[in-house]
Each structure stands twice: as C-alpha cells, then as structure tokens.
C-alpha cells in the first residue's frame, strides 16, 4: 500500500494561511451576530437571542476544531 505523500513546508504554509483566513471570517461573522443580537435585544425582541447564542457557540466550536487541526499540522 502506498503511503500518502508528505506535506511539504510550502503546502503546509498554504494550509495554515487558509485556516487563518477561515478562522478570521468566522470571528467577523460572530461579531456581526453579536451586534445584531444586541440591537434586537435592546429593541425588545428576545426571540432571536437563544438561536444566535447557539450559532455563535457553533462558530466557536468550529474555530476550536480548526485550531486543533492547526496545532497538529506541524
């Protein structure tokens, strides 16, 4: 059975940069979510508070998974 080719340094760098980009995008999404939720909550709309919190938690979980992958990559 053939072993998968080893990821060379340049490829690893691309992966790391890609992960950084995705993680940053997710954080920007979370920032938008927090702003929108705060605006709705202060306006008396509490119906979206819980779904938004769960969505933000899911984003954090995704980020944590990506960070874990990044740590294992080296």
């Amino acid at each position: 059975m053939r072993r998968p080719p080893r990821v060379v340094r340049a490829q690893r760098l691309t992966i790391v940069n890609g992960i950084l980009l995705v993680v940053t995008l997710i954080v920007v999404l979370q920032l938008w979510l927090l702003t929108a939720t705060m605006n709705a909550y202060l306006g008396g709309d509490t119906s979206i508070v819980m779904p938004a919190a769960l969505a933000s938690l899911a984003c954090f979980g995704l980020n944590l998974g990506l960070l874990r992958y990044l740590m294992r990559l080296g």
Partner: protein
Amino acid sequence: MIPRAGKEPAVADRLVTPPDGAPYEAQPRWRHDFPIDAAQDDYVSRRELAKFIVLTSAAFAAGQFWIVLKSVRATLSPPRALRIAAHNEVPVGGAKVFRYPEGSTPRLLVRTGEASYVAYDQQCTHLLCPVVPDVASGRLHCPCHNGWFDLHTGQVLAGPPQRPLPRVVVEVRDDGVYATGVEERTT
C-alpha cells in the same frame, strides 16, 4: 547548530531545518553560526495569531450567552406595577419625570386629557438628549438635533432619530397612575 561539511550532525542538530531544504554541506557558512529552524520560525507566529483569534471567538460566544442570561433574568422577574403619580399631581397638558423600574433611565409621563396619559423614555433615541412634550401640537421635541416624535405613539416624525421612544405601559386606577411595563421597540 548546523555542523560543518564532512562532519556527522548530532541528533539535536538534525532537528534544525534549513529554509531551502538543501543538505548541510551545501549551506552557506553564516548559517552554520546562525542556525534557524525555518519550519518553526514560520509557524509559531501564525499559531499564536490563530490562538488569539480563537480566544476572541470565545469572548464573542460568551457575550451572546451573557445576553441570554440577561433576557432570562428579565423574563423571570418582570418589573412590578408602580404608582408614578397622583391624579392631581399632573395637570392636563403637563408632564412628570419618573423612573420605572427603580434605578432606570428617566421616563416622562404626559397627561394628554382628563383621563388619558402616555409615558415614554425621556431620552431621545438619537443621542439621549431629554425630549420635551408639546401637548398642543401632539409631539415630543428633542431640541439637541431637532428630532420630533408623535406624542400618542412615540414614533419618529422627523429628524435624525431612527427608532421610536420606548413606551411605558400606564394604567389609570382610582388612586393614581401606575406604570405596569416597558415596551422596547425597534420599529
């Protein structure tokens, strides 16, 4: 440290990776004196940045749950009815500033008729200046930036405010006027 040409590198030295990946013998002389593990050099700062961004992500998620906590607390303990004025305290066309619930931002009670009252947050939704009632024209005026609100609905009529004034629900009872709730609104 990268060993000189012809010498067998020690175990620790073999862990050091030159950036071009060429054998030790092919490395320039200066690199023998300043060995840098290129792989580590590239990845450490990026990992640190990723850790920081994920920490920010955790802070945002915590912020969301803080809002949930505040929302649940407000639902479990709604403010109780509070007597805010006696009937003879506010003349028709007059107004009174009160706080409901205790410790809140100032609210404004306006008597629009013999038995009709309206109450709103006193702070303009633009930049929090106090609004002034004008019962004759049926409007509330914010003198700071010339914002106008409808006295009977609290909706924006003109000026820079984008949101209506939060409305305090009032109830007229025999012994006076009571505030029973606050209606926050975005539209």
